[in-house]
């Protein structure tokens, strides 16, 4: 019944909206563009009346759905199960799913065996942002020329390691508290213990002893996340050979640290450590550091983030053996050639950070009870996050989101996947477009991206037979960036000149991580370049870097819009 209320409020609104658009908008139907989740028709020339209608309808909807959540929690599941939805793992993915489930009126529980917040909040993105906030300031204060160019005089900048570490820790607890409270306030049951699936729609939770409780749920989401991946031969002692888990506690700042792996995690830590005075050596198995970034962005990033800093690198090598410092000897890293496996050098450093990636955490989940075999530890799923068993069949009512399925190992991707699953279980067919999920690396300056890299786009274009165009803009031409004395950087747009579709956007520069969303939203909504280029950006802001990017793109429209207009003869 409650869900009926929510439906009656939410579903007519798109209809009302589209009719309003048609009534009030005098432009010909050809200017109507279908965007968003392709449920809403929203005219390019939509009047403000239509917009305001949209705002009011969504307001009332959220109010009512919050109410629904409270009712649902009080009443219990409407489906005959203990819960409508149980989520295993209270990381960012589980949290996002839980909040959306409550909004949709589902009776929801979340099982957490460790601390609420998962990797991101406790051992990942959140504390690392605190450290990076410190490193960014240190870097700026230490850069005498930069300060002088502002006319500022700064005496030697220093730091208190313990207080920096405290800042990171305090931030994590604060965000953890916020997450916990937000779920409690909405009536999500937080169940403590490890969750194990016993069979379809049935699971237990607890410490794994006789005190475990068995519950049933209409739908189950696995969101157990991941742990740092430590390759064979590497002995992690948590002091001199560490993973990101330890590094974020910042228990000591080594003079010289080797970072094994030069992806996001390695790069962010190199930013932190070099700002705090360490020298860094990258050990990368691939032929170049910073693999995975668009090559051009990677090249620029290397020029700015690596070359001028106290960093060197070994590429095309594996760290076959890493021994922690002991008996008066430094950390020993044995390198072998990544291809021939021949021994190369041995590095002697003060510490080694293992940032080779992350491994899914699916142990003890009871996947064997439902005949699911993990692939390299990941839970196999389809594009709707439905879990696939060993026979290639869907396990009914079981979904897996986030790092555990390995589709895109980012906190916000997990959350988006969770929301997508909740949409599906409440009757809305929904497929998440992973190409619209942005990613960011919070170095100074930041790197961000969404969609395809240039090589990926070119490959796709060749396969599907379309043309690819590239445009670039520089932060050097942006007023706000210059005011900040931060002109270093570029934005790159990869698009189809034939129809104006955005294939990928990559940004390197000041606040790149905050700037990417205009592009990621455009991709999610299916907005085309010829439309978004008319959007207005406040001046002077960094967002004009993207504005200029869209404006400099050249779309060859085969059917010009002007045809419909009367041509005076």
């Amino acid at each position: 019944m409650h869900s009926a209320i929510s439906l009656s409020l939410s579903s007519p609104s798109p209809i009302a909206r589209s009719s309003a658009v048609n009534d009030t908008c005098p432009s010909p139907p050809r200017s109507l563009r279908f965007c968003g989740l392709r449920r809403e028709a929203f005219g390019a020339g939509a009047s403000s009346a239509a917009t305001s209608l949209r705002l009011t309808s969504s307001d009332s909807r959220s109010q009512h759905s919050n109410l629904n959540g409270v009712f649902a929690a009080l009443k219990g599941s409407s489906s005959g199960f203990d819960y409508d939805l149980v989520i295993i793992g209270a990381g960012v993915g589980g949290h996002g799913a839980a909040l959306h489930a409550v909004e949709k009126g589902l009776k929801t529980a979340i099982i957490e065996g460790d601390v609420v917040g998962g990797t991101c909040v406790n051992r990942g993105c959140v504390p690392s942002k605190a450290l990076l906030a410190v490193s960014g300031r240190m870097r700026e204060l230490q850069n005498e020329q930069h300060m002088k160019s502002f006319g500022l005089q700064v005496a030697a900048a220093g730091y208190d390691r313990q207080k920096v570490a405290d800042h990171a820790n305090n931030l994590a607890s604060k965000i953890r508290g916020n997450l916990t409270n937000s779920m409690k306030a909405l009536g999500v049951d937080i169940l403590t213990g490890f969750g194990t699936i016993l069979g379809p729609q049935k699971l237990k939770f607890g410490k794994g002893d006789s005190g475990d409780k068995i519950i049933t749920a209409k739908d189950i989401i696995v969101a157990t996340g991941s742990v740092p991946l430590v390759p064979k031969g590497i002995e992690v002692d948590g002091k001199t050979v560490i993973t990101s888990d330890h590094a974020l506690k910042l228990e000591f700042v080594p003079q010289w640290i080797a970072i094994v792996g030069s992806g996001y995690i390695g790069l962010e830590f190199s930013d932190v450590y070099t700002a705090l005075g360490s020298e860094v050596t990258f050990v990368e198995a691939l032929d170049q550091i910073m693999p995975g970034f668009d090559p051009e962005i990677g090249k620029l990033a290397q020029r700015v983030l690596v070359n001028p800093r106290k960093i060197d690198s070994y590429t095309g090598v594996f760290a076959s053996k890493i021994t922690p410092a002991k008996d008066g000897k430094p950390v020993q890293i044995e390198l072998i050639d990544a291809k021939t496996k021949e021994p190369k050098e041995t590095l002697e450093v003060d510490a080694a950070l293992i940032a080779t990636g992350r491994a899914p955490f699916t142990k003890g989940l009871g996947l064997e009870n439902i005949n699911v075999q993990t692939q390299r530890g990941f839970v196999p799923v389809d594009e709707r996050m439905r879990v696939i068993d060993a026979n290639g069949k869907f396990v009914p009512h079981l979904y897996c989101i986030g790092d555990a399925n390995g589709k895109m190992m980012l906190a916000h991707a997990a959350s988006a996947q969770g929301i997508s699953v909740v949409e599906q279980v409440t009757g809305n067919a929904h497929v998440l477009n992973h190409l619209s999920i942005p990613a960011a690396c919070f170095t100074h300056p930041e790197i961000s991206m969404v969609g395809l890299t240039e090589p990926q786009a070119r490959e796709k274009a060749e396969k599907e037979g379309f043309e690819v165009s590239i445009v670039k803009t520089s932060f050097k031409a942006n007023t706000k960036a210059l005011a900040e004395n931060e002109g270093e950087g570029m934005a790159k747009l990869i698009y189809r000149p034939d129809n104006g579709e955005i294939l990928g956007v990559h940004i390197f520069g000041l606040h790149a991580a905050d700037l990417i969303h205009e592009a990621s939203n455009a991709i999610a909504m299916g907005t085309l370049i010829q439309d978004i280029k008319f959007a207005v950006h406040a001046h002077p802001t960094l967002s004009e870097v993207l504005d200029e990017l869209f404006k400099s793109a050249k779309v060859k429209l085969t059917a010009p819009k002007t045809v419909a207009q009367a041509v005076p003869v």
Partner: protein
Amino acid sequence: MASLSFSSSVSSSIPFLRPSALLLRPRPRPPSRLPPVRAKIREIFMPALSSTMTEGKIVSWVKSEGDVLSKGESVVVVESDKADMDVETFYDGILAAIVVSEGETAPVGAAIGLLAETEAELDEARARAAAKSPSSPAPAAPVAESPAPAPVPSAADLTPGKVVATPFAKKLAKQHKVDVGKLAGTGPFGRVTPEDVEKAAGIAPAPKTNVVAAAPVATPVAAPAAPAKAAVSYPEIPGAKIVPFTTMQAAVSRNMIESLSVPTFRVGYPIATDALDALYKKVKGKGVTMTALLAKAAAMALVQHPVVNASCKDGKSFTYNSSVNIAVAVAMDDGLITPVLQDADKLDLYLLSKKWKELVEKAQAKQLQPQEYNSGTFTLSNLGMFGVDRFDAILPPGQGAIMAVGASKPTVVADKEGFFTVKNQMLVNVTADHRVIYGADLAAFLQTFMKIIQNPESLTM
């Protein structure tokens, strides 16, 4: 990344060979002492990537020293005030030497690298590069390979036969061309630290001076040079404010100290200016300035006295300049600069005046290109315009002579017959390098100059 090609054609010796200089005005010219082979070594210039660019930063060298380049290949990435650009070569050859290394800045037009045509020229190019870059430290100071320096932990801790250097130490070593293999590390576990490398390179830690950008600012100053006292502590006067030198002031200071090594002498000459003043009145309306008149007159006199336009660069030889480039001192808010009127002997007064106006505007906007302030062969300093009746100037290093022009004012003079008349007269005072210019040379030059000023019609021709 946009691409741009630069023309790396002219070697610094080319002004000697500039054909116009030979064809237009044949005159006794000392033979060029430069071996012809030099023409095959090309300089790679800092290109002007935009109209507002005055200097560029080398982002990275795509090629390393010794790499073979073919036409159209990108060689270096340069950052301008607008963007980063890949710069390509126009010529085939070998990248013989990198003069301005990564991360450093060089003014537009300055040589940033040398391109040799064949391997045979590599050594010569390298020698030239070494001469060009005053920063290039003495090749790795031979540091004794002491087997166990005191602060190093026991030899057992050291992995034998292997040098451990920290990332920054390696970077510095590459920059200063120090072989880390020859250093004894003083860091933990005997590793080579950045300090070790700096010590070996013979530099004090952390000074990041940019050698190439410090283009010589020619600097005549109307003040007696203070004797260079090394590290004398002066009594402190309470309440004094210490204001560090700007880049320009620091350059002036450097040049002033340098000038002390040149043996100079001074010769003065009174010159009547009535005729010049009359001419000035006539042409003033056409935009001709007094500076242009004086520069033109000096240039014309210099053509007849090439030795005064010469200089002594190495203490062993004359360097006769083929062009007459008159540098004129201009006071700035925070120092002074000497924009150069190139080929002042060949330009007419109107062109010269126009050129001068442009140069002054550029100087005030700090947009002078290096060759517009450092290519002078003779300097003119006119404090006369401020009423100063006589002064002498300090000879800017690298030039042979500088002329200090005093104010023209009515003076009682007695002629040959003993009659007194009142004539406008100015005192000019030339400071010259006695290694190349002798008293009689200056006297002859001044006589010619006087004749031109007193019969200024030739100036307008």
